[in-house]
């Protein structure tokens, strides 16, 4: 313990152990029970209670397939059950280029191909400008974009005849991993329920909006999404990662304790 390892060796050993610890559940599934968060119930009920014929706008702003996208996929799955039943209609847009890269993979995962494009769902594609895009879509989507992602004029898509502004929507979902302020400013408080899919670390940022009734429900990757998948009865990425997250967090805490013990021991030696 007295001889100090080179920093790069320390980092390599820590990273190697991280991989090993994350791999443990693949060999020995821990099977730790996943609880369903009250916020998950709120979100689930909110989607179930949208009146028939409602249009849902899904605004994707991030592509982290194994983190935020697991939550997006889970929310999409619940919405799509009702879209397939002919009860809801879905319009998807992105404000940044990231989601576009993985969108085809997402469509395959969600089996959107078996839906009637233009009638049951529409993909608007990229509307650049972040908050400016949200503001434009909320006020007049046809002014913000004249064609969908595939170049079809919006005027030729039957679903878009019913969607002009936020007043025509039954629900807005924004998938993101950053400050919730822009969607809350542009979509929130306008009489349409707002769901945010956002990173775990942003929960404190979202809470003031939740308490003010601007965000009706939120979903975060990891444990909450695993509970959501359990509620839907359709286990996905979050469930498969739940055990690995437990082992890696345990490892991180051991690592934190270890580095502190070594730090203070070395300090006392000096």
């Amino acid at each position, binding site marked *: 313990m007295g001889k100090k390892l080179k920093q790069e060796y320390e980092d390599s050993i820590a990273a190697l152990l991280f991989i090993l610890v994350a791999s443990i559940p693949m060999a020995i599934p821990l099977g730790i029970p996943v609880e369903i968060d009250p916020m998950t119930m709120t979100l689930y009920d909110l989607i179930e209670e949208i009146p028939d014929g409602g249009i849902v706008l899904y605004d994707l702003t991030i592509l982290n397939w194994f983190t935020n996208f697991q939550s997006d996929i889970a929310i999409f799955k619940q919405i799509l059950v009702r879209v397939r039943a002919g009860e809801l209609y879905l319009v998807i847009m992105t404000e940044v280029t990231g989601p576009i890269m993985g969108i085809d993979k997402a469509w395959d995962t969600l089996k959107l191909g078996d839906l009637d494009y233009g009638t049951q769902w529409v993909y608007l594609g990229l509307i650049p*400008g972040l908050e400016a*895009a949200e503001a434009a879509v909320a006020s007049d989507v046809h*002014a913000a974009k004249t064609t969908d992602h595939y170049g079809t004029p919006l005027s030729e898509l039957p679903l878009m005849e019913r969607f002009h502004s936020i007043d025509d929507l039954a629900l807005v979902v924004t998938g993101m991993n950053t400050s919730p302020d822009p969607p809350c400013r542009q979509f929130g408080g306008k009489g349409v329920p707002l769901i945010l899919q956002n990173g775990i670390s942003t929960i404190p940022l979202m*809470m003031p909006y939740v308490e003010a009734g601007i965000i009706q429900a939120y979903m975060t990757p990891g*444990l909450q999404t695993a509970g959501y998948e359990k509620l839907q009865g359709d286990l996905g990425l979050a469930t498969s990662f739940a055990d690995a997250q437990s082992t890696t967090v*345990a490892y991180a805490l051991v690592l934190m304790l270890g*580095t*502190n013990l070594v730090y203070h021991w070395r300090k006392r030696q000096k």
Partner: protein
Amino acid sequence: MSILRRRELPMSLYIIVMVYLIFSNYTGIGTSLAGDIRSWGIAIATFAGLIGVINISYLHIMKLYQKREGWPYSIVMFICFIVYFFAAYYYKPGYDWIISNLSIPLGAAFLSGFNTLGVIFRGSKARSIWSGLILFSVTVTALLMVSLGPLISPGILDIARWIKDYPTTGVFRAVTIGIGIGILMLVVRAILGMEKSYLGEM
């Protein structure tokens, strides 16, 4: 000085457009033109992508030209950019392969584990009572986020929920209010012609 080079012109445009948008938003008058103005914002934002390509290309060309440290990585960057660009437009199977087998797994490896690991390993030393408190908060909050948490101690999770619901949310509420006041200040300063950062002035 040419009228086009004087700062009064862009300042006037900025102020008139902003006042008009605020007026339209609160009165409902002239919403059609306001919608058009917002669409211009989207059109301008489209050019941001082009500016990004120009900037990154310029940066790496200069790095290669001057043989600055790490210049071989600039070659890698250009190869990746060109391959990715052409695959996206002309070879869909190759593009899908890049997304599924390179982009997504590498993104997951970078975002999900190793950068966090570095922070934990190098940055989590309790050098004072305050940093010790932060580490304690991090520990209990991390346990709240995983299914292992309730098995270790339900009591710790109650502390974590309290930290999340009261001190942290309280702080962020203050931050949110501060941002709101800041935006209002910015608008007032811009209307009065005191805000000039968009002209490249301090």
